[in-house]
């Protein structure tokens, strides 16, 4: 047991970075992670084949339907697998160290608990970053592969148009397909997915600071994930109930990070909105890590 206030004396970012890199290396070698990321990559790359179920021919409105499906499906897969990697990857960090008794060796060296905790979280966040980047690259490749086929068909439609009206329509379709394939707002949606996953990892780390069971950590983190998506509607429903409002305030509203749906539907995603949501997520992460620090510093190890 240590005093949380004295933990910052002689704080070393280098040690934090060392622990982070070590955590990342360990996590990447885990079979669970490899299976999850493999599944995610296979699923994302197969989105272009799934999109052909029931979506007619290429070149017309069906092209937009198929591209919409690929984007929905891939961003959904990134979100689901990212969530699983964030929760499973973070939930085992402290219990594993306790079970293998490596935590005693680490903390007996001149490593402060705060450094250990921050290092573990930074490693987890790096894991999220690597995963999101890998899945995004695969998503980009799948979208470009399918999109280029649709663009080729749409160009043929333009050249084959029988009259000026049809040519104008085909040209518009071509422009819409081009905008759907090369949409810069996808990056904004992915940034917010990453911030959401980083927040989820922080919450899982908080749970694991007072629990010893990995299953418990995963279950609680999953419940918070679901609850976080229901905060918005619940707040609206119980507007008059101040007790419920108070409890709901404690749970971060994860639905604000979901802009992928709106981006796919062609709504503009202003950078200001992205910045506000990212700031909201960051403030929460800092506070959750601080709370984790207070609990972890007081824990009997």
């Amino acid at each position, binding site marked *: 047991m240590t005093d*949380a206030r004295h933990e910052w004396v002689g704080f070393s970012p280098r040690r934090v970075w060392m622990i982070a890199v070590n955590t990342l290396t360990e996590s990447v070698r885990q079979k669970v992670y490899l299976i999850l990321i493999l599944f995610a990559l296979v699923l994302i790359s197969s989105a272009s084949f799934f999109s052909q179920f029931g979506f007619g021919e290429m070149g017309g*409105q069906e092209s937009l339907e198929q591209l919409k499906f690929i984007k929905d499906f891939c961003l959904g897969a990134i*979100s689901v697998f990212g969530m699983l990697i964030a929760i499973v990857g973070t939930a085992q960090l402290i219990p594993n160290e306790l079970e293998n008794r490596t935590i005693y060796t680490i903390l007996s060296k001149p490593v402060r608990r705060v450094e250990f905790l921050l290092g573990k979280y930074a490693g987890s966040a790096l894991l999220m970053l690597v995963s999101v980047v890998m899945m995004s690259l695969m998503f980009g490749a799948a979208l470009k592969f399918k999109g280029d086929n649709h663009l080729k068909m749409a160009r043929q439609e333009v050249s084959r148009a029988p009259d000026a009206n049809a040519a104008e329509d085909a040209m*518009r379709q071509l422009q819409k397909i081009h905008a759907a394939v090369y949409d810069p707002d996808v990056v904004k949606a992915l940034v917010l997915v990453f911030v959401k996953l980083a927040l989820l990892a922080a919450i899982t780390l908080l749970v694991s600071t007072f629990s010893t069971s990995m299953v418990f950590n995963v279950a609680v983190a999953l419940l918070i994930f679901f609850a976080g998506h229901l905060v918005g509607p619940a707040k609206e429903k119980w507007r008059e109930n101040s007790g419920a409002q108070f409890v709901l305030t404690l749970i971060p509203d994860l639905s604000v990070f979901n802009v992928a749906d709106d981006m796919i539907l062609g709504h503009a995603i202003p950078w200001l909105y992205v910045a506000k949501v990212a700031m*909201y997520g960051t403030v929460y992460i800092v*506070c959750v890590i601080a709370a984790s620090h207070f609990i972890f510093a007081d824990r009997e190890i």
Partner: protein
Amino acid sequence: MRAILTAILVLLLAAGGTLPLQERIQGQRLQLKYGGAHVTRAMRDVIGQGMAIGLLAGFRSVIADFLWIRGHVHWEKKEWLQQYNNMQVVTMLQPQSILFWDSGAWHMAWNIGYAERTDTNNDTIAQGIKRERIWHERARQFLMRGIENIPNRWDLYFKLGWLYDQKFKDPTLAAEQYGLAARFSDAPTYVARMHCRKLAECGKLSESYECWKSIWFQDHGKVPHLWNIVEREIRHLENEMNILDSQRVFPQQPRKPEPPR
């Protein structure tokens, strides 16, 4: 115990501190028209438990896409009512998607309507026509709901106009909807031309003439209209309405006006 209380206090501070930011974010979401319908009991019954869980986890669009694909399966099996219910749920999940409103109405008015009319179980031809009209009406109401959800885009006004034009054979209502669609600056140029033509078709010749003239007096260098068609229609109306030569855009004397720059 003190550490746990401190941790709770920090979390309370986080919640309280981010409250104004959260309200601003929600305000901006409303302004930007983000989000979709909330999960209701009726919706949960239609989509099933598994999909409802996915919905609660924030995978609204993926669920909507899978339901849409399921709708195609219903269509192949000629399960029209199931397909109809499916379309209702999909548009409830993603009310901001033009694609779903447009394709859904098209399925109802064209595909299902035709299948109902030519169904061999119909006792009489009239019965087939009656059944087809029910689906035309459903498509109309579907598009109207779509317009209520997306009033700021030209697409669904045009689709409703097209439905009135092609299926209801009502040029007056079609002209009205084409007119609404043509107000949007990003609408294709043919929408404005169709508006003018429908006005003439429903007997509003002077309105149609004004409509064609308003197109003609646009900047020919900037707006990519089919100017030969616009000229032909104006000439035709000027002759039909016996417009005085001095008031014509294209006087009968060999004097062709310069297109405005």
